[in-house]
């Protein structure tokens, strides 16, 4: 037993130390920082001035931050509905017994493994291009004038462009989660339903959906986590035309702390920390709400 104790300590120590340095310590310090006024990120604790909730109050009084929160909420909600809908549809098709299932699955998941910068560049510079873009050519080919004329990269439409491009990449991941959930449902349920004369859509509605509560919860949680960290796509899309359509809280924080910072009123690392805390709180709240809504996960299957 003594031997096991040394082994546990020796084997566990490196991972736990890394975890403490990269996660535990920074999380506590960020929470602390959010209640202080801090001029430079590197300032020692002795130079911090306690300011209570004023960082949070300041944030909510800043219009740009409110816009960024509204944007991330729109991405989370509309993008979420779009991605979850498509992911569930694709998962249902994949598990319906079609041929080439693995090929379809692999290709739909593919955008998740390639560099998002490369993917975003393809969308920005090619698909949405007003001169030689894919959507323009498609509109021309189908004689859909609205699609041919649609200016995706106009300030007014940039958000839709961002949403479409981002969701295209995300569908594959959530589809895999849904599909694995559907595959775990026993085939005998469907056989019994078929014998009782239920058609495919009824089977989907009354067997598949109720048994997918657990994976739906996973999917919503994962979607919320990736939404909270939304940065790269926003930064790349704001490059084309700098406007407030595509700014998100993480970009706001980045510009505030690490960027030129000229658009901000004051240099205060505490505000950046408050942004991080707010985003984390959002994720936790969503997680708790999901847990409550999808509580009846006890159906055995």
């Amino acid at each position, binding site marked *: 037993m003594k031997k096991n104790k040394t082994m546990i300590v020796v084997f566990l120590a490196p991972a736990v130390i890394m975890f403490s340095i990269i996660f535990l310590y920074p999380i506590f310090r960020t929470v602390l920082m959010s209640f202080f006024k801090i001029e430079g990120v590197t300032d020692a604790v002795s130079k911090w001035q306690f300011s209570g909730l004023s960082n949070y109050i300041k944030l909510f009084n800043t219009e740009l931050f409110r816009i960024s929160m509204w944007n991330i909420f729109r991405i989370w909600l509309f993008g979420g509905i779009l991605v979850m809908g498509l992911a569930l549809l694709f998962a249902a098709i994949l598990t319906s017994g079609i041929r080439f299932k693995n090929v379809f699955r692999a290709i739909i998941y593919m955008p998740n493994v390639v560099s998002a910068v490369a993917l975003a560049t393809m969308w920005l510079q090619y698909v949405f291009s007003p001169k030689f873009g894919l959507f323009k050519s498609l509109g021309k080919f189908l004689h859909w004038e609205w699609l041919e004329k649609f200016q995706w990269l106009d300030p007014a439409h940039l958000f839709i462009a961002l949403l479409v491009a981002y969701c295209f990449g995300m569908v594959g991941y959530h589809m895999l989660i849904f599909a694995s959930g559907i595959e775990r449902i026993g085939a005998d349920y469907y056989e019994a339903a078929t014998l009782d004369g239920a058609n495919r859509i009824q089977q989907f509605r009354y067997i598949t959906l109720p048994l997918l509560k657990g994976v739906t919860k996973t999917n919503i949680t994962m979607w919320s986590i990736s939404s909270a*960290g939304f940065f790269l796509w926003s930064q790349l899309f704001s490059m084309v035309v700098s406007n407030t359509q595509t700014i998100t809280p993480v970009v706001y924080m980045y510009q505030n702390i690490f960027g030129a910072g000229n658009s901000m009123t004051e240099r205060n690392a505490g505000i950046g920390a408050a942004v991080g805390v707010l985003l984390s709180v959002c994720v936790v709240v969503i997680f708790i709400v999901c847990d409550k809504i999808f509580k009846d996960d006890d159906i055995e299957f």
Partner: protein
Amino acid sequence: MAKEKKVRERVNWHRELRLAPGYIILSLWVLFTFVLLGWVVGASFSTSKEIFSGTVFQFESGIHLENYAKAWNTSNVSVFFMNSLVYASISCALLIVICAPAAYVLSRFTFWGNRLVQNGFVAAMGVPATMIVLPLFGLVAGWNILNVSLANRAVLIFLYVGINVPYTTIFLLTFFSNLSKSFEEAAAIDGCPPMKTFWKIMLPMAQPGIITVTIFNFINVWNEYFMSLIFANSDKVKSVAIGLYGMINSMRYTGDYAGMFAAVVIVFLPTFVLYVFLSEKIIAGVTGGGVKG
């Protein structure tokens, strides 16, 4: 993985017809993906003029391999590429050395704090980067070492490893728990000490899991953006993702579209090729480890 029995059945046309809407929907999506990638690859072999006139796939002026040469040499892509390769390889190796032993003891022994560590790691997978970046940056910037490129590289690798520790540990933990305990019992009867048992018997047995998680770590590090953007101080140490972003930024002034698409293809190719060969393993890994249904 593929549990359905692979019996060659005759095509049941009635059945296939019923599935037709499904085929059509998926095919359209897949077709779009192919056009997207295909066009970009085509454009990378053409010229900016041809891209604008919409004649990418006619290759009237021949195939322009020099786009790649230009991107690779003059636009620093070779530097970024090598950086990312080094970061990803070292991080992946370190992650296994750090996480496999931890995952093993977490899966095998009951001790105080076991559940706590596991829960902490699972929770850490959901922590937004904004929540940890400021103190880390404060710490590193306080040391004033980011001007030394070797130190800067070390910091980046340290971050890549640290961020992926929770995921890697939890993934391997699930894997180790599925290995039978009888191997260790047999080794113990033969007088093999537990630590040696791990290195000589259990770690080699966990090889499939280690390979899968290493593929994921490689892809994650290769594509990592936020931390690299903040911590990579000079062009010399930038990873591909950040390098490409800088290139696209400067591309707006030079107008070299063909060169830019060539750079996009170079950045995108390594993980893509990895995926073409290992997609089954990767997909099984997405739904197998870490994510609880």
